[in-house]
């Protein structure tokens, strides 16, 4: 798989976690692709934390409304039934537990469900935006990312970058498989048949429990 196919593969698997009539917030980058794979018969209300629910697809050139952007700054649309609000309401929705699921990328995740995804000191400091609020407020948190950073493990015993949130992650979905964060550590629950359990463990610094591993849904 090239990078593009890999990101779609991960996004497709994440989309299987979407529930009917749920409110979902997708992070920028790979997580945004999840919206392209919503299963048939399922309605999802996508929230954009800059102030609306009912986030729709990228508009055709003739349908562009310059007043509507997503949280990544891209021009988007709002679907019928959607609504706009201010940032206080938007984060009331987020912190108040009204977002059922958030899907975010990460620089590092660890065995306790800690996540680091907003800065590399001295190198890259974009800021946390809404990520800290989403991680503390959403009912379920999925990290969707490539399993390693060009071979360097991202799923660690303990994060060493500044944390975005503590014990926040429920599920990690990568091109290699699906990992559930439980109180006793990380459980590999699904594996991409293109890899062996040994290969997945080798690409993961944290110890994986592999007692019950199914084939990855696709």
């Amino acid at each position, binding site marked *: 798989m090239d990078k593009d196919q890999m990101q779609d593969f991960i996004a497709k698997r994440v989309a299987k976690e979407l529930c009917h009539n749920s409110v979902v917030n997708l992070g920028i980058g790979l997580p945004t692709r999840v919206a392209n794979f919503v299963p048939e018969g399922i309605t999802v209300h996508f929230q954009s934390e800059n*102030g609306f629910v009912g986030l729709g697809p990228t508009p055709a050139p003739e349908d562009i409304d310059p007043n509507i952007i997503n949280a990544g700054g891209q021009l988007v649309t*709002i679907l019928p039934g959607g609504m706009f609000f*201010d*940032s206080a309401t938007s984060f009331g929705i987020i912190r108040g537990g009204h977002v059922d699921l958030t899907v975010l990328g990460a620089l590092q995740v660890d065995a306790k469900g800690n996540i680091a995804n907003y800065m590399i000191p001295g190198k890259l400091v974009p*800021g946390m935006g809404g*990520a800290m*609020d989403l991680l503390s407020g959403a009912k379920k948190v999925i990290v969707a990312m490539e399993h390693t950073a060009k071979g360097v493990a991202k799923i660690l015993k303990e994060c060493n970058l500044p944390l975005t949130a503590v014990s926040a992650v429920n599920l990690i979905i990568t091109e290699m498989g699906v990992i559930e964060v439980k109180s006793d550590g990380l459980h590999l629950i699904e594996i991409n048949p293109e890899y062996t359990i040994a290969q997945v463990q080798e690409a993961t610094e944290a110890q994986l429990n592999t007692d019950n591993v199914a084939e990855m849904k696709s």
Partner: protein
Amino acid sequence: MDKLISIEQAVAKVQNGATVMFGGFMANGTAEGVVDALVARNVQNLTIICNDSGYIDRGVGKLIVNKQCVKLITSHIGLNKETGRQMTAGELEVVLTPQGTLVEQIRAGGYGLGGVLTRTGIGTLVAEGKQTVDVDGVIYLLEKPLRADFAILGGSKVDKAGNITYKGSTNNFNNIMATAADVVIVEAEELLEIGEIDPNVVITPGIFIDYIVQK
């Protein structure tokens, strides 16, 4: 009182060293006309409170590129490379704040509250040096209120009483910032007579607005 003034009259009120809030999210809903006039006036040593630092050529980013700011309180600086450069060089102090916390600090400042309690940021750098409060066994961070000398808003339709409606996602921080500054200025994309906005659809009440300028 007639609230309508020129952009030049509005920015003449902003002195060196002022703290200024700007509505807008990645420049969507930011009063670009006022930002341009502040760049032209070259007011110095500003403290800016804004969701993000815009782009180098859009939103509050233009004030940063023109080196008019000494401090920035914001949630995100990733789309304006100059912000990161000035921060790393020690030319600009940047206080990174979670977005939901930032808007609640501003709301607290404008709504007469002594701060807000939030779980956001617990166990991270954001919590360093901050007081925590135990409410029935749950630990929260105490985040203090934020106010400014000026709030600069971008309104889509504004009547001459200062009542505002917003198009699309341009509301974002504007409606909350309207309450949290000593002087509140709205830049109207479309200026209407009193009575032309249905009171049922007003988002930001005109009583919060001191001055109106036209884009």
